[in-house]
């Protein structure tokens, strides 16, 4: 057992909630071998984060360890004295977190936060600690580290903040690094850089790594061994190759099947041959930056943000277009122009039917990103869904209940949910209601703005499947806004890649993805973790 660094035995943790005590982790046992990279994968509510925080005895105030041990080199982390615990944290094991913008102190210079551990564990004075902190930041490939060390967290980009957090975690050379969703809050291209950095540092420093993620792609790329968790229990453990190529549990099989990068591409020949229903020509959207009073008096010109910059594209009736880009690319702004929430500053949007005086709401509809904010919290589902029928008098009042039932069937929701309020529904169910509400208007075009980005992968796969079915059955024209190329490839015949408001690339998705013309699209493609190819030698469909 010399080989074992940490062994977790029968760990059970419960949370006090308003509904009484709930077990978040139920009798979990596993070992971490010295020098390995262990991945823990699971969807929300699987307890994976609770387990990894327990490795450092970090608990929410309402959490309670019911039983179990966490032995690090033979010593139980859960029963350590405060002094031992403080020495263990930072020197033996350290952690990096999901959201670097909330996990750095906003009012302390980042260099000081890296130096903090050194001053406490190594008893260095401030000057020496700061000097070492700067060199750590340099190791993390932060350019101009001496100056950056004096910056505050809000002055740094997301990727840079994550580098700072890694530097702070590694300051006292712990042997074990625990990473809790380290790249989830980052854009895909930055995500790839951070993963590469963690890989490199792990080799240089012979670190043992525990990587926790919802993303099997990331885990597969980084780890030697994988633990699959669900509802607070371990479903399956094995080497990466075993788990990815020969999963035993049904849950794991489904999880792998749901991976966006494993979704099949759309059949290339199935392309709509009808006339354009939407055509966008040279559309720009400018947002004036707020001007300060002093600037107005001084007659300084106001700054203008070009959220969308001369974009032209079109969609065929019955076709499907995916608009891909990272945050700030202007993809959502463009969607809002299409549905009429925003007026373009320049250019024209032509939508078939509108020029014949048809009501825009009956031609084009939209489903929204945030499952928590997309439904009126004080309405029942029935109220939400019946409102379009009543407001537009789409049918006699007596027919409304039947229409609601039909809608619920269309989006595969049980009728019983009609009497509930949105707060009592799961994220996936809410998104289905949002789609049903849009479909109530029987639109020709449906825009889906990042509808799956807040959902677990297995739920995402189901929603994507729903879209595919709806498009065929209802002859919908679909415009899908997403940050995820794999999702777009699954659903869309055409793809448009946007960055900083500009349209970078536009064409058949099969073509663009096979042979990307711009470096940016290539980077996007490369950044999507593709576990099976690299580890298991599987080819992508």
């Amino acid at each position: 057992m010399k080989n074992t660094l940490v062994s977790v035995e029968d760990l059970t943790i419960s949370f006090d909630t308003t509904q009484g005590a709930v077990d978040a982790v139920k009798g979990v046992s596993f070992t971490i071998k010295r020098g390995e990279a262990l991945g823990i994968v699971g969807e929300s509510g699987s307890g994976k984060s609770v387990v990894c925080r327990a490795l450092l005895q970090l608990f929410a105030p309402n959490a309670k360890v019911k039983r179990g041990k966490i032995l690090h080199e033979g010593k139980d982390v859960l029963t350590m004295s405060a002094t031992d615990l403080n020495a263990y944290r930072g020197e033996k094991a350290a952690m990096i977190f999901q959201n670097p913008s909330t996990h750095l102190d906003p009012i302390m210079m980042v260099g000081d936060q890296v130096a903090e551990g050194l001053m406490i564990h190594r008893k260095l004075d401030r000057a020496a600690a700061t000097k070492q902190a700067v060199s750590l930041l340099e190791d993390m490939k932060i350019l101009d580290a001496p100056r950056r060390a004096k910056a505050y967290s809000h002055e740094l980009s997301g990727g840079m903040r994550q580098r700072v957090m890694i530097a702070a975690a590694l300051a006292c050379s712990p042997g074990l690094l625990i990473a809790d969703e380290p790249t989830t809050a980052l854009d895909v291209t930055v995500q790839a850089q951070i993963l590469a950095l963690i890989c490199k540092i792990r080799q240089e420093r012979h670190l043992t790594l525990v990587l926790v993620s919802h993303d099997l792609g990331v885990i597969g790329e980084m780890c030697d061994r994988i633990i699959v968790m669900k509802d607070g229990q371990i479903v399956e453990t094995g080497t990466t190759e075993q788990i990815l190529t020969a999963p035993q549990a049904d849950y794991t099989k489904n999880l792998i099947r749901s991976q966006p990068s494993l979704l099949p591409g759309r059949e290339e020949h199935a392309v709509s041959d009808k006339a354009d229903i939407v055509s966008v020509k040279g559309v720009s959207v400018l947002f004036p930056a707020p001007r300060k009073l002093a600037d107005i008096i001084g007659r300084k010109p106001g700054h203008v943000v070009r959220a969308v910059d001369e974009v032209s594209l079109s969609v065929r009736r019955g076709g499907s277009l995916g608009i891909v880009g990272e945050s700030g690319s202007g993809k959502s702004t463009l969607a809002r122009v299409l549905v009429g929430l925003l007026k373009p500053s320049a250019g024209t949007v032509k939508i078939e039917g509108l020029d014949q005086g048809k009501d825009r709401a009956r031609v084009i509809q939209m489903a929204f990103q945030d499952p928590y904010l997309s439904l009126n919290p004080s309405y029942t589902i029935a109220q939400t869904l019946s409102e379009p029928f009543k407001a537009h008098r789409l049918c006699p009042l007596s027919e409304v209940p039947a229409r609601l039932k039909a809608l619920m069937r269309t989006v595969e929701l049980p009728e019983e949910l009609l009497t509930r309020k949105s707060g009592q529904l799961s994220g996936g169910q809410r998104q289905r209601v949002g789609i049903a509400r849009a479909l109530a208007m029987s639109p020709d075009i449906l825009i889906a703005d990042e509808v799956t980005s807040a959902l677990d992968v297995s739920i995402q796969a189901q929603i994507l499947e729903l879209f595919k079915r709806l498009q065929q059955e209802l002859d919908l024209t679909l415009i899908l806004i997403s940050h995820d190329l794999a999702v777009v490839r699954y659903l869309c015949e055409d793809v448009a890649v946007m960055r900083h408001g500009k349209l970078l690339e536009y064409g058949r998705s099969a073509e663009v993805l096979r042979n990307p013309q711009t470096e940016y699209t290539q980077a996007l493609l490369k950044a999507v973790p593709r576990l099976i190819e690299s580890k298991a030698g599987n080819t992508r469909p």
Partner: protein
Amino acid sequence: MTKSLSSPARWLRQEAPTSLKIGLAVTLLWVLAAALAPVLSSFDPIAIDAANAVLPPSADHFLGTDSVGRDILARILYGARIDLLMAVAGVIGPFILGTAIGLLAGYSGGWIDAVLMRIVEVTISFPYFVLVIAIVSIMGPGLTSYIVSLTVVNWVTYARLVRSETLVLANADFILAARVLGFRGRRIMFRHIFPNAIVPSSVFLMTDAVLTIVLGSSLGFLGLGVQPPTPEWGVMIAEGRTYLGTAWWISLCPGLALCSLAFGLSLIADGVAQILDPEA
């Protein structure tokens, strides 16, 4: 929460926060006391009885008598009518006016919003209490000027709360969805924004009732509110000031009455806040 709709009484007994229960009980007691004042005490709250001046609490006068011989318990019971009225009348006007203006500013934006918000900004630059006094000085002391001045000054608090909530809601996905669905502005405003935008200000309403009752009695204490001989608790406390060393009960009893009512209202506010925002 669904059960609470079917049976409020049961919900109150079983699930409501303790502070809400106690608060409601205390407040209800005072409402009853005010309503039943003539039944609970046979003394006249206003008539002077010099022969019985400054009597300490006794079997006849449970809480003693004041400097002109009026029974203090009777005056406290009748005073509850005035002070409860001040609490209610002092918040209703500002709430309605402020909510209307806040909705208007938040939803219409542009110059209407800019102008209204400048007015709010300037109004809050005056110390609240001082502006109330300035208006009272123009209108002359009394209950009417109290209500008018509070409405003129206090609407800004509600307007700010409602406006900022409206702004948040106006960009919420479900409002955008309503716009994409082609609903008319009136429908979006009154069915979607309004019911959600008034939640925070409704919570504040209870806290504000406490502040208002304290403010109203302060005016009475300073001689700028309800005028003697009307029994109002602040007025009564002021009347007992000179006897503080010798006849403490004249000031202390109405003071404790005031504190207990304010306490009840605070607990209701605390309970309501706990239900709507369990984090705090």
